[in-house]
């Protein structure tokens, strides 16, 4: 088997090869590590590589396979976004604040993936504290999009998406607070799933906005995402907001049948603001599902327009409190020679946090401060309910909702850096899903000028199965998801 075949293999196929003993976990792991070694200089997708630890886990996986002791991800290498705490492995969250931070505990997702036999290769670059849509806010430098090194990979899980697209790992994890899995998945041409809020434990994931954050997988196929979702999901006694619901075997639940599936197309997503080229790609993808038996239905989400304002109050407000713990006292960055306590706070925080993080802390603090709580925070929480009820009503008529994942393809570095609001618009199609706590998925829908574009599928609460099914059917009938960036062939 050639390396490139190996590197483009899906979890599903690698798993079969491992079980058939055609290949060993150590071989796949080494290939991934070599790929990281070769490409990371150009891409900057990975912050920390755990080579020795990975080889060690791979060998253990190979022994387990030899014994016939096989779990759902035994021997499959993966990269975690550097927002998941990893016991004994530096966890930076893309920030100078946590440049040297080594947790004494694992995130539940990390524990679960490990229990399923996955082999952790290392930690992926990301926007600082997951605040960004281009991966330009990372203290560790921007991540390059493997489809065009002059372009951003999206964010905040940009390192994960780029690493996956570049063949550094067949499976990566991300988190999505306002689009941070779906938008980079769209920009890097991979499949990314944000599960329903509460499906996956948040314990050990460095918090951005607690009522919006949700972890999920990114992989080459919807089927791989289904496998990974089952592995990472479930109630966690350590997370009060994790849902007490059984976890289906999402892979077993996959079928190709979309006959009679009603797909809602929100008028507000397909209005004149949508780039016609993006609309064309999205409609072509949807027509594939239509031909397979699905019905496209026009729907309304009349308050969609308010999602961005709502989000940019709630997320910064929660973040302003979540990030108060970074004070230079117990862990993380501490300024040199503080002259007193106030100096310690002020300098540790303004030197340790980057510009975008500081901006959001300021906005959030403002929205919660005396005299503004009702006008901003409380109001945003009310509008959040209004937006959620739009979805609830729509789901009375349709089984899922579809739209673009992002307004366009990957843009050039610096293009939106001067204007925070322009950058925030990257997430206009994804934010509302987080506000309502719904599952959302981005699947490749072809290329525009050789750059990938994504189709977003939105499901009912805890109905990841339906959107995984639809994506799976789409991926059965098309090969957009198998597209690989030029970068891969040039460097390998």
């Amino acid at each position: 088997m050639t390396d490139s075949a190996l590197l483009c293999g899906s979890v599903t196929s690698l798993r079969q090869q491992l079980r058939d003993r055609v290949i060993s976990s150590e071989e796949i792991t080494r290939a991934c590590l070599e790929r990281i070694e070769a490409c990371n200089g150009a891409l900057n997708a990975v912050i920390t590589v755990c080579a020795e630890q990975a080889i060690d886990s791979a060998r253990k996986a190979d022994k387990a396979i030899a014994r016939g002791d096989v779990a759902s991800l035994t021997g499959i290498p993966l990269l975690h976004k550097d927002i998941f705490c990893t016991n004994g492995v530096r966890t930076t969250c893309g920030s100078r604040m946590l440049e040297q931070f080594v947790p004494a505990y694992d995130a539940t997702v990390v524990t679960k993936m490990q229990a399923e036999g996955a082999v952790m290769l290392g930690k992926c670059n990301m926007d600082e504290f997951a605040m960004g849509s281009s991966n330009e806010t990372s203290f560790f430098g921007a991540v390059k999009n493997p489809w065009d090194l002059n372009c951003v990979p999206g964010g905040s899980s940009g390192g994960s998406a780029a690493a996956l697209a570049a063949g550094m790992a067949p499976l990566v994890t991300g988190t999505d607070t306002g689009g941070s899995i779906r938008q980079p998945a769209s920009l890097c041409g991979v499949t990314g799933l944000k599960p329903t809020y509460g499906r996956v434990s948040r314990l050990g994931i460095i918090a951005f906005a607690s009522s919006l954050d949700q972890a999920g997988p990114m992989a080459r196929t919807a089927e791989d995402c289904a496998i990974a979702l089952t592995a990472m999901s479930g109630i966690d006694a350590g997370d009060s907001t994790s849902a007490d619901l059984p976890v289906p075997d999402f892979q077993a639940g996959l079928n190709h049948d979309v006959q009679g599936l009603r797909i809602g197309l929100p008028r507000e997503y397909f209005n004149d603001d949508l780039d016609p080229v993006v609309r064309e790609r999205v409609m072509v993808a949807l027509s594939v599902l239509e031909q397979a038996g699905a019905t496209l239905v026009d729907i309304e989400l009349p308050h969609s327009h308010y999602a961005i304002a709502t989000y940019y109050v709630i997320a910064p407000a929660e973040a302003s409190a979540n990030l108060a713990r970074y004070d230079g006292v117990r862990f993380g960055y501490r300024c040199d020679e503080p002259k007193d306590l106030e100096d310690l706070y002020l300098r540790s925080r303004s030197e340790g946090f980057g510009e975008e993080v500081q901006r959001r802390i300021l906005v959030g603090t403002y929205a919660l401060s005396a005299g503004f709580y009702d006008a901003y925070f409380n109001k945003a929480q009310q509008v959040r309910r209004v937006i959620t009820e739009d979805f609830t009503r729509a789901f009375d008529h349709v089984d899922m909702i579809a739209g673009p994942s992002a307004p366009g393809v990957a843009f050039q570095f610096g293009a939106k850096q001067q204007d925070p609001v322009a950058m925030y618009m990257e997430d206009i199609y994804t934010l509302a899903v987080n506000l309502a706590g719904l599952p959302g998925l981005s699947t490749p829908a072809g290329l525009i000028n050789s750059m990938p574009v994504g189709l977003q599928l939105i499901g009912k609460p805890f109905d990841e199965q339906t959107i995984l099914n639809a994506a799976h059917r789409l991926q059965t009938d098309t090969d957009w998801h198998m597209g690989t960036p030029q970068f891969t062939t040039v460097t390998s």
Partner: protein
Amino acid sequence: MSWETVMGLEVHLQLATQSKIFSGSATTFGAAPNEQADAVDLGMPGMLPVLNEEAVRYAVKFGLGIGARIGERSVFDRKNYFYPDLPKGYQVSQFFAPIVCEGVFEVPLKDGTLFPIRITRAHLEEDAGKSVHDAFSRETGIDLNRAGTPLLEIVTEPDFRSAEQAVAYLKALHSLVTYLGISDGNMAEGSMRCDINISLREKGTDALGIRTEIKNVNSFRFVERAIHSEYERQADILESGGSITQETRLYDAEQNVTRSMRSKEVANDYRYFPEPDLLPIVIDAEYIEAVRATLPELPGAKRARFIADYRLNDYDAALLVPNHALADYFESVVTAGGAAKPAANWILGDLTAALNRNETDITDSPISAAQLAGLIVRIEDGTLSSKLAKQVFDGLWSGKGDADQIIEARGLKQVSDSGALESMVDAVIAENPDQVAQYLAADEAKKKKLSGFFVGQIMKASKGQANPQMVNDLLLKKLNDQS
């Protein structure tokens, strides 16, 4: 000018749970610094709170104990401020929807009357850690062992007019929470800390004056002193035409003054908002009834019952009831056959004195309730005079067995046997013919005086064990028979 003090109290009560409110760390007092603080307590990245069911149950118990309304749906909020012993930069508390809503708490005053205090609310929150200022020369040390200890903050309306009322409330509250078993109420260890909101107004006026808040007063005595000293300070200012600054003050017990806390550079703006890591606590009627079923008899009811059933006076009842163990001890003495009033007298008198001398708690009393009952039975049946009873009590205290054993061993029995007494009387009369003659010749008034001589002789002969009343009766009869 004549001033009226208006006060409301906020009590921070540490709940006696095994583990912290949001983590599985122990709450034991006195561990080495930071050894009882886990990743949640330290506010480490990615950590999340999970609510301790016992903290919720204790809060509901308290609410039911004061007849307050229990919030059907209470919510945790984040209170945001920076301080080194506040690990997350926010305290998880309840601001918008507390678990215990309005109620009324009846406080017994010294004169036996009940004084109703309106409780505004009581809410659950986490404690902060401790800043240690004196252990290092140039730094402050932070110990987060206490961080995350469950607190119930109990807030009253401004219903207090005197230090005496405030202290009576705190004592009654202490009694209630120890009865409920929700807190050890140990003020010295900080299990019960009191903030006093205090303002003055001209007597006869209604408007509230500008108040100050005296933080963290940690004993009943200091509460009383702090109130007096703050009253003096405010009255001086007002009388000299000044105005009070609304601020937080600390009570300095050594100097007996309150001091302004260094004013913070940033005015407090706590930016409360619902804690997204926790969901609403929903408490239904079934849960409330289940908790209600576990409530013990509370101090108010017990006081009333002691007065009605045991015929105790207000004073005795008021002294016995607040300490649950003392009240239980009293009832055990009565159950074991000791009469109620003497039992109360012995417990509140000699026993309490002995316990205090030895710095012992009633629960560790060397005299068991059954033993004290045994002593009281022997007094009531005339076996022991009050003088002998004290000797037996001392014997009980030093572990010499129960009352009957001590009476037996020391031969302390009061002689009430008429045959034995008769022969003693006969012997004394026979041995003192001159005094008998004098007696017989005297008039009635003098006779009474002279009979004392014979009683003294008999008591001496019996080593004090003769029953004085019986001796007296027998003697008069015998002397009169001589004539």
